[in-house]
């Protein structure tokens, strides 16, 4: 168990189930995601079964269960992007990366997240990869975009945001 998670739990002595969400948030903030060990430790701390902790955590979009990849990918599914076909873009990205929203590729390069609105509706449909915005993305652009990041990673650049 990560000592940092232990520290967080110590900040909630004698806590009950109403502290579950704040604890989940604190752990995710510290670790970037909720590992199985963290979920189990939180369950033990609150005397809650792991199935409950996991059930509550998966109810909210804000929690992730795999570590963030080197390039974190955000796909906007806000109204403007939706109208401009972001569902197809998300589909294409999921196929390209072989992971579903919320997942991280095996090589740890990309993690995929769906966000409600990035606030760049003029650029719809928009995605962000490692902090860079890509505007007016069509499904057929997807392979090219990700190839560029793979290239960047291969060059050993430490320029990921």
């Amino acid at each position, binding site marked *: 168990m990560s000592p940092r998670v232990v520290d967080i739990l110590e900040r909630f002595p004698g806590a009950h189930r109403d502290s579950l969400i704040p604890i989940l948030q604190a752990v995710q903030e510290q670790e970037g995601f909720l590992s*199985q060990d963290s*979920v*189990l430790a939180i369950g033990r701390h609150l005397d809650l*079964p*792991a*199935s*409950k*902790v*996991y*059930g509550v955590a*998966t*109810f909210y979009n804000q929690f992730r*269960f795999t570590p963030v990849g080197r390039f974190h990918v955000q796909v906007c599914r806000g109204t403007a992007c939706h109208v401009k076909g972001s569902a197809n873009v998300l589909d294409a990205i999921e196929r390209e990366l072989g992971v579903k929203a919320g997942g991280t590729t095996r090589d740890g390069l990309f993690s995929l997240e769906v966000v409600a609105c990035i606030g760049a509706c003029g650029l719809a449909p928009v995605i962000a990869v490692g902090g860079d915005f890509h505007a007016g993305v069509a499904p057929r652009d997807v392979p090219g975009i990700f190839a560029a990041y793979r290239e960047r990673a291969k060059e050993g650049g430490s320029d990921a945001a």
Partner: protein
Amino acid sequence: MSATETFRIEVNGRPAEARRGETLLDVCRHAGVDVPTLCHLPDLAPSGACRICVVDVRGRGLVPSCSCPVEPGMSVETNSQSATRARKTIVELLLANHPDDCLYCVRHGECELQDLAQRYGVRERRYVTAKNDHHVDISSPSLVRDPAKCILCGKCVRVCEEVMGVAAIDFIRRGSRTLVAPAFNRGLNVSTCINCGQCVMVCPTGALHEKSHLKEVQDALDDPAVTVVVQHAPAVSVSLAEEFGLEPGADVEALMVTALRRLGFARVFDTSFAADLTIMEEASELVSRLKGGGRLPMFTSCSPGWVKFVEQFYPDLMPNLSTCKSPQQMMGAVVKRVWAGREGLDPRRVFSVAIMPCIAKKFEAQRPGMGDAEDVPDVDAVLTTRELARLIRLHGLDLARMTPGAPDLPLGERSTAGKLFGGTGGVMEAALRTAHWLVTGREMYHLTIGAVRGLEGVKEARVKLDDVELGVAVVSGLGRARRLLEEVRAGRDDLHFIEVMTCPGGCVGGGGQPLRADTGAVLSRLEGLYRIDRSEPVRLSHRNRHVQELYDEVLGEPLGARSHELLHTHYHARDGAV
């Protein structure tokens, strides 16, 4: 609940008795009016998840009857146009993403969703969306979880947590992606699931069912080089009747024995024989612990869900578990490692089948240590009461028309004490009868111990064996066991012996039993066992002459070296379960 106010309301134009605190559903059912439900569980708080139970209340419109408290002056129509139309729409919506491949489904013909579609005349796919296509979870040795068939009624989740005290599964995610799953959406085999199957008993659809061993058994029966022997658990003969439309609780043992022979089993043995053997060992173990040889209170160990429960939630109390194997496994060991040799058979060519009211027995049969030194399993396949019924039907046999038959000796002989194992309190009663004899050298004057009988979840008694007074407790349903274990952990020390059965009511209420039975049927099965105990002469495990013969010729003494090798086991903590 004394002096509850009663009044009358109107249901479908006729007066109906109501009591304050009841729901409309209760009132309708008491009045003999059927209202369908999907998420309702008697004895648990209503969840209101499915809405199939809507009824039309004058002046209010449609309300879910399972969660609506009755009030004076109400007038209810259960089958108004708007109520039946609403129910039909609910079924149609449930079917929208449901892979309705009924013909290929385990629950075909026994499915509540299918029944409702039939009852409300669903004849077309009105809402068409993508069908669920979740992975089937076959990781568990006992049950199969097919989330695509799940209608999210939540009954399994509530039973697992509130009745069994396990909480292995819960809703995960939300909206259209909601699923019932173990933590981390992993397989049941690595979860805290104790394989009790109580979730299967409440599931209205094919989303949860037992892992079938029928194929293995049929293959063995077809193999001329293999001798297939069968044992049947105490609860089975008083439960099978229901599968064939006979009276709940009727003892069909003699008919079942013949049916089993007709199916091709070479020998029909009785798990109750091994229950008598268990009592010889377990009562001796109790007496030895009372004399200072081990941790008290001693816990029974014949219910494999309970054993796993202790191993994963209360490993500190594992020394309290009796080291006795369950009757199923004792029988398995005796068949393969004693009987086979005496018959001149190679144990590898003996296929040993157990018919059980339980799906955790499938898990138990493959526990480490449940085989010989070369890991030849003592029990090769476990069929539930339901699977046996399926096998009998497959062969076109009519149970009611079988000529009564007698079990094979020596392993088909039993006392009625062994038979009592099939219900909550039965192990306790049988063990106390024999412990009394071991301690005092005399039989108990009153063999029936009323205080440990009946369906109540927790029963306690003080029993005298000459000058020793024992505190005993009997619990069924692990949620209740959890509370008692907490007391023991906290230092409660007036108890010497605790019987725990995983399922409410004991094996008669097991997870492998006929589906859709109510408490009344479970009680009838239990009474069936009491009837047997009343009507037969041999009521003491230590009077089973073939058990005594086994000691004389093979085992020596209870708790002796050979007994330890064949009949006892050990436990290991499971801290990895999630």
